[in-house]
């Protein structure tokens, strides 16, 4: 009988240790955010040549955001690239970007994106962010030919081209 009581006490002690162990392992901390929360406006550059649309690698491209306190270079001297990822501001309904295809000599163009904003909850780990819906794109035509919207929804999904720029 004494042996049985000893076993009961030992079982109780082990049970208590296990309770502390599980409790210590279950204190919540914020999980790391493992997904992008800033949607990118993906831009592709093309040429319309001999009845066909072909990719155009810009030789020394410059993209500058004009809608912050001072002009901010987003791409500077990007060599032989035709895909660019820009951002839109959730504080405004428009975003203006300056584009220079070749920083050495080509003329500058201004592209204005007009859009709607939509608040989006990602997760408790990542918090809130915004998705956008493009409604119009305006541009000057100093060096480029035209700008068209290809996919209106600007989100964190990968592999989507939103705007095509033709030179």
């Amino acid at each position, binding site marked *: 009988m004494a*042996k*049985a009581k000893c*076993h*009961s*006490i*030992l*079982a*109780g*002690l*082990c*049970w208590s*240790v*296990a*309770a*502390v*162990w*599980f*409790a*210590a*392992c*279950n*204190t*919540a901390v*914020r999980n790391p955010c493992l997904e992008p*929360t*800033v949607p990118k406006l993906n831009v592709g550059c093309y040429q319309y040549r001999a009845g066909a649309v072909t990719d155009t690698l810009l030789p020394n491209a410059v993209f500058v*955001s004009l*809608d*912050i306190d001072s002009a*901010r270079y987003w791409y500077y001297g990007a060599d032989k690239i035709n895909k660019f990822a820009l*951002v*839109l*501001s*959730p*504080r405004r309904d428009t975003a203006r970007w300056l584009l220079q295809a070749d920083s050495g000599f080509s003329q500058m163009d201004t592209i204005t994106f007009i859009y709607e904003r939509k*608040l*989006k*909850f990602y*997760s*408790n780990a990542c*918090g*809130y*962010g*915004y998705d956008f819906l493009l409604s119009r794109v305006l541009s000057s035509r100093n060096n480029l030919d035209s700008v068209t919207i290809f996919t209106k929804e600007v989100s964190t999904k990968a592999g989507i081209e939103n705007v095509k720029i033709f030179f």
Partner: protein
Amino acid sequence: MSKYSFSLLLFLLSFSCIAQDQDSLAVPAKASAPAAAHPKQLRFSFDVARILMNRLSEQKSSYEGGLDYYLKNETYFTAEFGSGNSVIDYPDLKYKSNNIFVRAGIDKSLFERRYPQDWGMGFIGFRYAVGMINRNEAAYTTNDGLGGITSGITPAHRFTAHWFELTGGMRVELFKNTFAGWNVRFKFLLNQKAMGELKPAYIAGYGAGEKGTAFDYNFYLAFALRWSAKH
């Protein structure tokens, strides 16, 4: 990690001790209770692990208790209840939530009792659970990638969550009428969409509101009332 492993070994060791204990107490069934008497038991349980977790976590707290009643054929009706709250206070997201919940279900002992007073058990069971959840207004800030910060408030939300649980565990009678035991639970949320966009980080009785399935455990201390009904 090694200290945790050692603790786990101690935990597992306790089961072998319990088995020996029951072997040593084994008494022929005919010697103890009259055949006509039907044992009855109502057992009250309280999850003591929650108290430890409440001490260790600044974000959440909860309390759980329950009772089970012996029906027949080593089957128990079980009802559990509890409440809890969580405080999310991240730099970019702040809100509070609280909830109460009720669970009801059946536990079935996997082992036949070795003598009439043998109320220890290893069991499996299921639960259906309902939780009433209240999330307060949430304040958020976002970074637009250009260094700009936006902030706002999303409205409060009340909703009812339903979930189903598969559970298993053990109860060991440490002293007369006093039990210790544990449950592991696999939970399946049945109406996750009802939570809206901002799902609470913690729902007492369930776990992370963002996940459709959850794993949980309980460590119970329990006290039993017993009597015999003669037919």
